[in-house]
């Protein structure tokens, strides 16, 4: 698909981003068959517009696309030639929205309404990653949040306290680390900041969901390819979904690209698969973003 190259109109705040996301697995032994699913396609949602997307797979395989329960665009494929290396490269072009202007938030009473509670039940529940037991000081944060005048103010408290507790550090946690473990270790990456924030939001009665996506540089950088991130942040329900980025404490807008939403990481993994054979190691993830 050819995309006309219009430089982004920075006065509008939105950006046109070209994203290349490369990842995969290296297997210890030759693998005869593997079954995989990729969730790397930016959504057309809330002012964000997907212009083009391709997925390259090595070894090559035919792709079955579908939309999952959470609304993510999934690309499923199985590989049946003996392989030691599986590499996927997702290339997308997307227009991001300008910074959203939110209206006034709702009230605690609205969140306690049985209709809201029922409609948002999935985003209030505990999950394997997001516990609601709140050991070690998170309960005090929940109480402080409940003392705020509105859910919106409570969400700001959540972000502030999580950022006080956790310091950003790669390698201290891994893909299986839970909110509880990250809170204990006081370190983590965006996934851990997000799970921890989800735990206090939900415990305080504020529906909250996990967002997987990409992050561009804070300032526009037209024409320059930068190393981006496979990123995660939070959306919480307060008379509408509102986004927060606990890792960077930045407003979520033109630099954020939304790919998938769910209860926690397990609902939105960018790449997951199974194969028969010995150990595998991740190839790591590189994301390169070019503002057009």
């Amino acid at each position, binding site marked *: 698909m050819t995309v006309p190259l219009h430089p982004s109109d920075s006065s509008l705040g939105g950006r046109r981003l070209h994203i290349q996301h490369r990842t995969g697995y290296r297997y210890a032994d030759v693998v005869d068959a593997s079954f995989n699913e990729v969730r790397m396609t930016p959504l057309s949602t809330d002012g964000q517009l997907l212009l083009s997307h391709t997925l390259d797979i090595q070894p090559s395989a035919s792709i079955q696309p579908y*939309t*999952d329960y959470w609304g993510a665009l999934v690309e*499923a494929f*199985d590989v049946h030639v003996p392989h030691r290396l599986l590499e996927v490269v997702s290339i997308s072009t997307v227009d991001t929205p300008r910074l959203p202007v939110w209206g006034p938030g709702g009230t605690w009473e609205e969140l306690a309404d049985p*209709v809201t*509670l029922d409609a948002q039940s999935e985003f209030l*529940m505990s999950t394997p990653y997001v516990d609601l037991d709140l050991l070690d000081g998170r309960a005090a944060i929940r109480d402080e949040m409940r003392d705020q005048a509105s859910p919106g103010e409570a969400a700001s408290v959540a972000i502030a306290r999580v950022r006080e507790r956790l310091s950003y550090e790669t390698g201290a946690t891994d893909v299986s680390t839970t909110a509880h473990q990250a809170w204990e270790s006081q370190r983590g990456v965006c996934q851990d900041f997000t799970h921890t924030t989800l735990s206090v939001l939900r415990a305080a009665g504020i529906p909250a969901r996990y967002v997987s996506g990409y992050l561009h540089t804070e300032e526009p950088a037209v024409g320059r390819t930068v190393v981006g991130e496979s990123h995660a942040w939070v959306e919480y329900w307060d008379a509408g979904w509102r986004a927060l980025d606990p890792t960077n404490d930045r407003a979520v807008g033109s630099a954020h690209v939304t790919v998938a939403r769910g209860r926690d990481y397990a609902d939105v993994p960018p790449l997951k698969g199974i194969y028969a054979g010995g150990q595998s190691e991740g190839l790591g993830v590189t994301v390169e973003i070019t503002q057009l």
Partner: protein
Amino acid sequence: MPLVTLVQNPGKGATVTAVPTMAPFDEMLLPDGRPRPDHGAIVETLSGLGPSGLVERARQRDAYLDRHGITFTLGERERPLPMDLVPRLITAHEWRHIESGVVQRLHALEAFLSDIYNDGEILREGLVPRSLVTTSTHFHRQAWGLIPPNGVRIHVSGIDLIRDEQGAFRVLEDNLRNPSGVSYVLENRRTLAHVLPEVFAHHRVRPVNEYPERLLAALRSAAPLDVADPTVVVLTPGVHNSAHYEHAFLARHMGVELVEGRDLYCRDNTVWMRTTSGPEPVHVIYRRIDDDFLDPVHLRPDSVLGVPGIINSARAGRVTIANAIGNGVADDKAVYPYVPAMIEYSLGEQPILPNVDTYDLSDPDERAWVLERLERMVVKPSDASGGYGLVMGPSATDEQLAKARRDILENPRDWIAQPVVTFSTCPTIVEDGSMAPRHVDLRPFAVNDGSSVFVLPGGLSRVALPEGSLVVNSSQGGGSKDTWVLGEAHVPDVETPVEATGSSVPWPPPPAPERVNAPDMHDDRIIQQERQQQQGPSC
């Protein structure tokens, strides 16, 4: 909460306070000890044999079952399924009622499943709380958007019925995942005909042996639309499964392959079967393994019983999985109280077969009410079947009651409570060869081929063998009875097309008109006539 009221009214109906002290209804004998109509001949024949004659026939039966390897695995032990020599009779009139009630319920449950795995309209309408669906352990989001080729999700069902003190049939639970026991329906008939042939002499008993043929036809019509001559297989977890006998039985009688997960593989969304003459494509999988083990790509990654990639093959429309994945959300016991409301919502009809009263333990008021009289309640885990985890209040120890109380308070969503309903009894041969009343239930098996629902005239009557016991599950040591549906005594007139065509009822049903002035639900006769009139034009 007006919603709850709306939902519970139909289920609770006229007998909210079923009196537990009432004598159970007996299937064969009137309260004065005389046989019920249609039961005279059988009572006479059995009495004529006498206790010693019946003990001798029981010996012949055990030898027969043993010789034919008809066994059930209970715990570590394989044993013959205890089949009582006294059959349970269902009159033609009763059967018409059961059949139409089962078909009606299945229509509503199919509509519910189709809705929650696609559009979710029934949830938006607030008819069933969304949180009840999303917290069901059997709600598989992986199956969302997966549309079966002929629209059927409940290819095979076994809805458990009981008969209350007034003799009214009620639904005890829905089994929409992998209901088992149909092989015993066929084997019981064969066994009884062998060891006690004289009891058949005076009755027109409707045959049950067409089941495998009906099942195969339904599975074939569930195949992907572009396949002219589909290959059907039965997928079993293996010989260690308690129902393996049945899996082999059905495969043999349908003339299809019995396979395990390792015999199948997916490649580019086609499912292949390994055979000695090379791989063969498979189009319909009648799977008798649980959802969680079906596909390690989407469900339990450690499963070695399933087939990796099978869900995406089904999603691509290349293979049909029967029963569909995720049906368990509709037979979740916490969803069960809402089935009468589903029937009204999707069919515009009153339920023909009422529920048993059920208390929603996530409602604080109902929970408090139940906890005050737990010793008179049956408490069941909402996501289990087969009688596992059930606490029978009147016979529970203080310790068991205390544990049930703790469990309920800790996780109300995971439990339901029902008043103890005294099921009907049927004379059953006990140790010394005499006959004594024992409690029975009834599991009619229904097969949906996409154009009609076939309810096998018979079904499995399970009997609680210990005196006074109300637990009939074979996994809990229950036995079974040959179950006879009696033929019509006369040629049915033109206004009763349901029985005139044998036993298929159209599916999907013709659109139901808006109902005003619905008749009182416990007047079965009126409802039945109305259903038959509605079905008339399409028969």
